């Protein structure tokens, strides 16, 4: 048995080589900065509000991580968010008064998300279409379907959704509980070996196939998980805005992919982790706050946002380069 001190030492030594190291450093830096320049940034009210607004991106980034680890890419999440959003709102409206209104609407929304993910998975695996272009195609299709369900923003959602979503229990907001629950689920998937098998698919798909892994099944499941997380994100947006919007998710596909990349996950698949994606998503959201409190003009805000993302990604690239060369050195020494 190792002592506690030893495990801690080992952990702190391996920390710089963790994929999420960089986003963690940036995050800590941002938090310290916000402590100085952000007026009352750390008030409980502000933090719960912020977290609620971050929630959709966090969820989408988590879902995207599954797909990217499996060697794919999902560009369709943006319009999937819109589709789930309008389906849920439409059902809520047409079922108003019925006792099962809320569960049916939520389940239908999640069902749409998972089905969409399943279709994406089928296209990528059994039909062997390239992930980027096929999910671009489904992005167009989902967007069209969303407009078909609800042709302009509107619709009424019971206000109780917002009350529940923004409520706190024991001082901790509802959304944090939801995220914790989902992270438990992710942890479970890690324990069962699903994530490891998925990484094997992403890292070397032919090798995984030859080791008798159910490659296609795993990849389809990763897309379905992505759809599931996207639909939850859409439901969070519905609860936050209390209305339907067929254009609600635009931009989320690229934002979630940048969050995953910032979190140290390789976009080629096979390496990375979920904690990194969460940190990456929070970094993306915090950039705006930091720049806002720094008192820059709107134009500088946009410029700084782009530059900070590029710099962070560049630093991440250098870090992985260093790590790989270090690992190579080690291997050479052993030989």
């Amino acid at each position: 048995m190792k002592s506690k001190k030893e495990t801690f030492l080992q952990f702190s030594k391996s920390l710089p080589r963790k994929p999420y190291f960089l986003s963690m450093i940036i995050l800590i830096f941002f938090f310290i900065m916000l402590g100085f320049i952000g007026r009352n940034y750390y008030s409980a009210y502000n933090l719960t509000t912020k977290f609620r607004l971050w929630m959709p991106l966090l969820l989408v980034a988590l879902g995207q991580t599954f797909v990217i680890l499996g060697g794919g890419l999902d560009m369709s999440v943006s319009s999937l968010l819109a589709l789930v959003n309008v389906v849920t709102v439409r059902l809520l409206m047409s079922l108003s008064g019925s006792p099962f209104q809320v569960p049916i609407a939520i389940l239908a929304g999640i069902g749409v998300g998972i089905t969409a993910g399943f279709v994406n998975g089928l296209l990528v695996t059994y039909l062997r279409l390239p992930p980027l272009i096929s999910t671009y195609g489904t992005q167009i299709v989902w967007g069209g379907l969303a407009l078909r369900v609800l042709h302009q923003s509107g619709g009424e959602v019971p206000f109780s959704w917002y009350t529940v979503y923004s409520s706190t229990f024991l001082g901790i907001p509802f959304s944090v509980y939801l995220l914790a629950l989902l992270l438990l689920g992710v942890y479970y998937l890690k324990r069962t070996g699903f994530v490891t098998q998925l990484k094997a698919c992403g890292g070397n798909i032919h090798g995984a196939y030859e080791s008798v892994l159910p490659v296609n099944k795993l990849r389809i499941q990763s897309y379905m998980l992505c759809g599931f997380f996207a639909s939850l994100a859409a439901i969070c947006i519905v609860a936050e805005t209390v209305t339907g919007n067929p254009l609600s998710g635009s931009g989320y596909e690229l934002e979630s992919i940048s969050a995953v990349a910032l979190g140290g996950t390789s976009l080629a698949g096979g390496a990375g982790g979920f904690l990194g994606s969460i940190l990456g998503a929070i970094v993306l959201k915090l950039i705006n706050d930091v720049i806002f409190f720094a008192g820059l003009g709107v134009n500088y805000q946009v410029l700084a946002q782009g530059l900070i993302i590029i710099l962070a990604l560049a630093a991440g690239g250098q870090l992985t380069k260093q790590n790989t060369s270090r690992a190579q050195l080690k291997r050479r020494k052993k030989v």
Partner: protein
Amino acid sequence: MKNSSLTLRKVRLGFRNPTVIALFLCFLILLIGNLVSPGFASFGLIVNILVVASFVGLVSGGQFLIILGGGNGLDLSVGRFVTLGAIIGGVVSQKQDSKLILALLAVMVATFLLGLVNGVGVTHFRIPPLVMTMSMSIVIIAIIRFITGGIGVPGASKLLQKIITGKVLGIPGILYIWILFAVFLHYLMNNTTFGVKLMAMGTNDYAARLAGVKVKRLRTLLYGFSGMIAGITGFLYLGYLSSVYNISLGDKFTLISVIAVVVGGTSLGGGKGTYIGVAIGAFLLQLMESFLVTIRIDQSMRQVLFGTILLVIIFMYGREQKMQN
């Protein structure tokens, strides 16, 4: 006997050729369109569709070079480069014909340099092209806002408009530009060392480096070219629109240029494809959209159909290899 089977095989292979399929689909859509609404395949309408397709085709040229260069290359900032080109062109030329050359040069230099930044990020800092170019498009929108300052931009000069839309032998000037561009790119790919190096790099990065291709430098240059081509297209687009109506006028080019490249038979893995195919792909996409407008389906259904047809086309030849092989 052997000879005839060989020709048969050639014919069969021809039908598997993406360019041939795309061309065939173009004719099919024209035929059906003409049956549904007579006059769809008239000369005037086809020219109109070609004019709209030409801008997509030009932008796709840069995208094509990058995707061909391999390494998961992709440029998601082309749309913003188009906008930037239109705006710099408008600001520098100030509606005066005499400053047109100056404006073109300004557009070329600015977009080429910004494109190089993309390339440096991808090659030297190992940022995945997807996120690098996407972040770059955020930077470019900021630059655009600095230039305009939120105020309207001077539109195109008379001469520029004349060059783009003025007809010679019933064909607008932009189409001649497109044809010249296509011939140039075709020549570049087939008759120069640049083309050979590019193909080698796209097929196998490592082997190309061993064979003496300066992979990093070439790839960086490609991003510069893509930015420049998109910028020049934006400048020409200004002549077509005659004014900059908003600062998102180029955004639609980003997605459609990638799709046109794939529909034209270029593999996303790099090292395979021709510009002629890409040009036909751009025309096919525009034709499809016009067709869906012609048969009067509402916008949402049109989008669904467009996406589905796209998936079917990619299914026909854009597929990846089977796992067993």
